[in-house]
């Protein structure tokens, strides 16, 4: 089979899974639905492997294959096809997404077991994977936008999965609307491409762009910045990041799948995909890189002080995506994609571990209340440490190799790109510090009440579930893990998924070691071979190892500091917090971004709405005709003799009046 046939198969399996589960939920048992869900993704993953196999079979320069199903829209001679592009970048993404998704589906089998909405969950989850793969495999910008928006919808549906929680539905709405803003950016970019280049097909656009645009031509910059709006909204970069932390209202597997491993990396993929355009607009690429850098520092500082376990990991996600955005914007495409992959492994793992712990804590998410889980849940704690080490970039874990590759590329490009290298190491320090803040808080110390009970009885503590944000009791009738939901370390599905990810988080970095192996690098030649930056900036092995050394030291330093503050000398931590309470408050308020957006956008809009509703509707719109009616009515009351038939009278007056007026103009103008 050809690579494109595998490509269609990758898409078909999860779509079929979603429709089957969604339409047949009354007939399917929950087990069947779950197995169907996992199976569909497994088929997708195997097809992605098939596509990889088929792609490796052809010479490097032929590894971009397009296949079209039918014409989606055709206007003025410009066709938009329902087509897919299978190339190394797409296959790499498809493998990562379907692979990690498969493990998260497996985890969900057990994690969601006692939920009333079990089948609905798998229907949504399969739909999400279909949308994400559509986004990845799309062969033109319009189909990309379709996948892009479907992913946004799937995210909405899954964030508000427990739809009786008002906080969850509000968070879903926020995510959806911000994502729509991103969609608009992409739509405008596609329209501009259509106007300038007469096509929205990737290959045609990338082929024509270099002849059509001079370097840094304003239109090219505009196109790239509009693409960036889409990328930033989806990837939760400043200033479109506020939805991601709220998205943690969804079930934990959703956070792992969508809000860490796959969907939020779509922006990184998009910039890598559109790299021929970004290389024609270096200014836009630099802006994107700066946004990535700012986000990675911003999110890193917020993660230092937030106390909600899932939100710390969410801010960490923003920060890590900042690295990737920075990487693909400065031309380190391979390194950016490499980090995307390793991040998917360790971040999914961290969320899974967090999910187990939160379940054991009866849905309480505050890390200040957690301690001593190393004894209560050794397997989970062990994997939490593995994930944290990978996140902290500790050698030889996967994050160690991938993060440094981006930073040494920046250093090697030189000039102002040094800023990205230095900023990146500062961010790495923050990362290592906050990831071990979690580890030291959660795993070490004397067991907290819940951990104690777990050790004693073997069952996690459970009261009736309540909303961690608002404290309301949850409505378990429509789907929420009930009081007898015991999942901590009990199920082989969860252990298998977490164990596999643990191995990948540990060893995933080894496919690309400076001077030893460069599997990814050479595989990506089929997609990035045309790039000047990618081929000219070659990092010498010595520099690469120097970078790795700095990374290792940064990580070690930060972990020891965290150990000192959270384990050895806790009074020092309290003193620091007391003395810098203003900084602490500023960070804990997430730099007041929510308040700022509320003030700048939401409030003015509602004010305008109220103004329209009150003043304009009443006086301006009503006035236009209200006045007329009043005049006619007064006139009518003078002449009318009978109460009935006043409507006919209005009509008569009006028609005579208007016809007369019209005739007057007719005579006057001719």
């Amino acid at each position, binding site marked *: 089979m050809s690579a494109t046939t595998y490509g269609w198969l990758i898409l078909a399996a999860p779509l079929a899974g979603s429709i089957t589960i969604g339409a047949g939920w009354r007939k399917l048992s929950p087990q069947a639905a779950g197995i169907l869900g996992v199976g569909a993704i497994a088929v997708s993953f195997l097809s992605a492997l098939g596509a990889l196999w088929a792609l490796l079979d052809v010479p490097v320069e032929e590894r971009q294959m397009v296949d079209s199903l039918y014409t989606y829209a055709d206007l003025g001679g410009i066709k938009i096809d329902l087509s897919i592009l299978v190339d190394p970048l797409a296959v790499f993404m498809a493998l990562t997404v379907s692979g990690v998704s498969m493990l998260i589906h497996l985890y969900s089998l057990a994690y969601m077991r006692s939920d009333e909405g079990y089948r609905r969950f798998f229907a949504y989850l399969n739909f999400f994977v279909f949308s994400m793969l559509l986004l990845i495999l799309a062969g033109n910008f319009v189909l990309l936008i379709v996948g892009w928006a479907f992913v946004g919808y799937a995210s909405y549906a899954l964030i508000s999965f427990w739809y009786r929680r008002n906080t969850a539905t509000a968070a879903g*709405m926020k995510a959806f609307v911000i994502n729509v803003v991103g969609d608009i950016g992409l739509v405008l970019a596609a329209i501009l491409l259509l106007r300038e280049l007469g096509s929205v097909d990737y*290959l045609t656009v990338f082929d024509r762009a270099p002849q059509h645009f001079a370097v840094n031509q304003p239109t090219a910059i505009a196109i790239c910045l509009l693409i960036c709006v889409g990328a930033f909204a989806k990837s939760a970069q400043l200033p479109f990041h506020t939805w991601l932390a709220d998205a943690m209202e969804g079930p934990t597997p959703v956070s792992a799948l969508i809000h860490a491993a796959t969907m939020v990396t779509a922006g990184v993929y998009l910039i890598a995909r559109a790299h021929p355009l970004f290389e024609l607009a270096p200014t836009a690429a630099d802006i994107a890189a700066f946004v990535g850098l700012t986000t990675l520092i911003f999110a890193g500082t917020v993660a230092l002080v937030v106390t909600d376990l899932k939100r710390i990991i969410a801010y960490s996600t923003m920060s890590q995506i900042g690295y990737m955005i920075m990487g693909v914007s400065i031309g380190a495409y391979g390194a950016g994609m490499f980090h995307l992959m390793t991040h998917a492994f360790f971040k999914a793992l961290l969320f899974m571990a967090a999910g187990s712990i939160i379940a054991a804590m009866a849905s309480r998410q505050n890390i200040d209340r957690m301690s001593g889980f190393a004894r209560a849940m050794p397997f989970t704690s062990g994997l939490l440490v593995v994930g944290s080490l990978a996140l902290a970039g500790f050698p030889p874990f996967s994050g160690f190799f991938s993060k440094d590759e981006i930073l040494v590329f920046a250093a090697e490009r030189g000039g102002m790109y040094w800023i990205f290298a230095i900023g990146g190491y500062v961010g790495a320090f923050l990362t290592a510090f906050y990831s071990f803040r979690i580890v030291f808080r959660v795993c070490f110390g004397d067991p907290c009440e819940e951990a104690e009970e777990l050790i004693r009885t073997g069952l996690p503590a459970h009261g009736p579930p309540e909303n961690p944000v608002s404290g309301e009791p949850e409505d378990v009738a429509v789907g929420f893990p009930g009081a007898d939901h015991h999942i901590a370390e009990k199920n082989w599905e969860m252990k298998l998924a977490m164990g596999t990810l643990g191995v990948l988080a540990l060893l995933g970095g080894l496919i690309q070691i400076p001077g030893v192996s460069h599997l990814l690098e050479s595989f990506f030649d089929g997609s990035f071979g045309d790039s000047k930056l990618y081929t000219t900036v070659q990092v010498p092995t010595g520099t690469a190892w120097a970078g790795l050394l700095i990374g290792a030291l940064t990580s070690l330093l930060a972990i020891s500091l965290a150990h000192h503050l959270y384990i050895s000398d806790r009074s020092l931590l309290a003193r620091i917090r007391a003395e810098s309470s203003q900084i602490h408050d500023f960070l804990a308020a997430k730099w007041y971004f929510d308040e700022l957006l509320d003030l700048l956008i939401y409030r003015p809009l509602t004010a305008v709405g109220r103004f329209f509703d009150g003043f304009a509707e009443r006086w301006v719109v009503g006035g236009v005709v209200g006045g007329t009616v009043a005049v006619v009515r007064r006139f009518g009351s003078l002449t009318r003799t009978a109460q009935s038939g006043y409507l006919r009278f209005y009509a008569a007056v009006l028609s005579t009046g208007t016809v007369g007026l019209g005739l007057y103009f007719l005579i006057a*103008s001719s």
Partner: protein
Amino acid sequence: MLNSLLWTPLLAGLIGLALPKRWVGTWSVAAAATTLGLAIGLLLDGSYGSDALNYVVDESWIPDLGVRYSLGVDGLSIGLVVLTAAIWLATVTWSALHPPRGGDDAPASARNPALYFAMLGIGETATLGAFLAQDLLLFVAFFDLMLIPFYFLVGIWGQGERRAATIKMIIYTLVGSLLMLVGAIATAVMAADGGTVSFAIADLREHLLGESSQKWIFALFALAFLVKMPAVLVHGWMPDAYRSCPLPVLALLSGVLSKVAAYGFLRWAFSLFPDAAIDFQLVIMLIALGSIIYGSAMAFTQTNVRLIAGFSSVAQMGFITLGIFSMRIDGIDGAVLQMINHGIVAAAAFFVIAALYARFGTEDLTEMGGMASKAPFFAVAFMIITLATLAMPGSANFIGEFYILSGAFQSKLAIAVIASGGVALAAFYALRMYQRSIHNRLPEGATSRELDLREAAVIVPLVLLIIGCGLVPNKILARTEAGSSASVSALVSQCREHGAAPTECAAEYGLLGPTNREGGFEPSESDGGAGNPTE
């Protein structure tokens, strides 16, 4: 063929008056289904690859006045004809399954379903007539005739302040219609210039008026159309009428009648007053932009679900007007596609509102919530309608809006950029309505109930239609493209008087489509070759 399509609904409505009460519903559904069948026959049988008219009927009607009974259908109108027949079938079916009763103080005639269905029949004939007419006076006559059945439908079967609502509706639309009548007569008289007066579109096209006369007559037509849509500032009749109107009738008002106005711009205003249309381009585009912003802002402050849908309709009609007045092939064809999409979606939304009302007993969004738990299919159907309303990529509405924005982008950049903000607002108000009725907590006393068969019989086919259009939007685009490009060329050819050469002038106004764009891309032979990226 066109005659039987046009008069079936009216005749069936009149016959229904003589039938026993319990047969009327079935009889009307059968008649509406027949009409839809005829319309689909036209769609499948006619050829819409060029701008030529199909099934032309041309009889002398009032020879003394030069009025002809002249009908025809082309790519511009065929989609709207099918839409009209389809939405009417939906409304008639819904009404047959949920007999209209009217408010508490309804007059005795409200208990006569035959009268209700006869009014619907008259309304359908009038609407189809407006789409098919090829004679200016005939168009105006049908356009005015549309008003009468709706006056009775709101006045007899409406709720609340129905009397005030009908008065407002009549005054607004009557003023518009009468001004248009004056304009139409003036056009024919002045075009004849002392010779034989004719209202036929072909004759009028041959003798275009001078620019100054065109301008004020265009203004009269534009006012009538903008009131009917409605557009911002002249929408004063809409809130009251929407509050009172029976919901199935509202599906027609919002889904179909508003499209007659938009179609009027394309068919009549552009062909007869091209110079004026070009002169007024910016003004109308600004009004359209106003409608988008005003409609959206209102839609997300209202709590009455009818008004949310109503103001959303104002905003969507703003987008359609924007596309039409971009005066480019992509904008216009996008607008025609969007008229069809919005017709389906808006109608479906009002049936959903009817279903919500049946469950909550209120139309206030703040008193709704949590319907999803026992009603998953209802939730899914409503979700699909909501997503299509906000022009979710993947729906045909997205393709329509994409081309509308593309057209507007190239003729008036700043307006298009601001208008695209309306897309985000649409996401907010559409989702807000969904979320607050389907999600969150169920209010005291309400129970979650799945769509019953009588509701599903109407809502499910509409949802399937939305999905179908989303999968193959090109089936519609391919049929409407020739008609749209004819509208553009009517303008471009006339652009001569504004500048040196037609193309130059047209380029200045941004009138040309992507194919004939000045300095456009010459596709080379190697382009479009899949799998040879090395080129």
